[in-house]
């Protein structure tokens, strides 16, 4: 896995771009994400069903992972079972 990889959810429509990552397992809706969609959809885990929002960046507490949502879906993101949280951009007063 490297930055720039596009990952798809096995459990919903969610797609993310990897901005930063380490060796852990990236999941969506409780199921591992992959570059291709599996033939058979994985079940959506109720613990990871809060949804992933278009254009939001998701990070872990240690700052090792950062994922950009490029397609929204019902599942929510996690790494090795630990939920990721939204990282806000630091919007500037319109400067350009």
């Amino acid at each position, binding site marked *: 896995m490297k930055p720039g990889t596009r990952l798809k959810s096995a459990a919903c429509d969610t797609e993310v771009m990897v901005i930063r990552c380490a060796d852990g397992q990236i999941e969506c809706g409780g199921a591992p994400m992959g570059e291709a969609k599996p033939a058979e959809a994985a079940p959506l885990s109720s613990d990871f069903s809060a949804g992933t929002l278009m254009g939001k960046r998701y990070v872990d507490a240690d700052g090792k992972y950062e994922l950009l949502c490029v397609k929204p879906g019902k599942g929510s993101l996690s790494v090795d079972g630990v939920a990721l949280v939204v990282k806000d951009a630091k919007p*500037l007063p319109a400067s350009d």
Partner: protein
Amino acid sequence: MNIALLLEMAAEAASDRVALVCDGKRWTYGDLLDAARGAFELIQESEAEYVALLDESSEAAVIAVFGAALAGVPYCPLNYRLPDADLAALLGRVAPALVVGDEERITRIAGDQGHTIFSREEFTLKVQETVPEPDSREYDPGEGIAIQLFTSGTTAAPKAAILRHSNLLGYILGTVEFASADEADAALVVVPPYHIAGISALMSSIYSLRKIVMLPNFSPEGWLELVHSEAVTNAFVVPTMLARIVDAMEKGVTVNTGSLRAIAYGGGKMPLEVIHKALERFPGAGFTNAYGLTETSSTVALLGPDDHREALASDDPKVRARLTSLGKPIPTVEMQIRGENGEVLGPNEAGEIYVRGDQVSGEYKEKSALDAEGWFPTRDAGYMDEHGYLFLSGRADDVIVRGGENMSPGEIEDVLLTHPAIADACACAIPSVEWGETVGAALVTREGHDAPSEDELKTLVRSRLRSSRVPEKIRFVDELPYNEMGKLLRRKVKEVLAN
């Protein structure tokens, strides 16, 4: 990651929303993405190693930048105001390229360089006719160079500054919230396409889903008319444009500009008089002064609307002076002021401005200017006050070294400009047998005033600064030479003063 992602996401979220208005034509995000994918096909076919643009702002600039990104070749917008010989040399440096724009001129000056040449109309039409096939295409992963910009070359030959996909995405993802604009928002883009502010305006507008309104050829009347007819909410201008807009309003051009909420400016020094008048003329707009360089993917520091208002309302001269500052570094960028030996300086100590961050490329085609820790020396001289506000005193190369003493032209100019009869001032180094360099000044007299005597001006400088700052040579000129972006061409002033 590829900068084309910005447009892909916009099209994914709002395919039918209007993205761009130019010359009365409207383009949706879906239209632009299809056209960029069409451009990919054309670029692949041409086997070009660059995509160059020799044209004013139009939809072609947007299509070319994202088409080039998808194809994995650098996009290189060129300054069409350059003389033929200079332009031919730059085109030679990007050959073979797919060149879009003034077909007749490109053919005449660089027809033998192996380029594939399209007029704007032909390019725009062709990319729409080409049926994009995104599913069967391998688009570039975006690990390389997205944009190559030739620096304006006010001090030396133009350098090829390089911006990687990662620099531009670092800037946009770090500072713009996706889809954050209201559907009624509209940004008026009037900066030429070869300027970094013109490029970052396109990217941040597209990522925030803010409609872009393009004015290819600036005139104050045209600008005001578009603000009114397209209900423009955001605009970026260079100081000379703002001066001309305010001037036109003073001379009686009246349109309703009530939709304007934000006016940003940058690219050169804003005269205090102009910003004061503009604040009066646009009471409903928040003003932002943005400071950035080509090599930093645009803005690295800014003075926001609240700072402007506070400065205007304050009785404290230090707070009022913030109107001439560049504000504070943006949260995603680190900034330091360093002295001659590279030591980090404290508040109010003047030195060279260094920046570091994802968006900072600091890279030229020939070599990287970053130091071992990733810091970029901007060659801009300045200082930060005790509250972290950045003040610019000029280019580091413009520093006047008189007998080993460093002097910034800005402090001398500021004093000269306090004289009621002086409208514009440029101080620069002139050769001196005794000191190596000494201070020369070119001055413009204000309309309706007589030129003050040299003695009077020298006494003025001596009363405020050390005597070494007193200009040894003073010359009155009709006007100072600026380039079209409002940058003072000190090199030319030096020539005038040397004669």
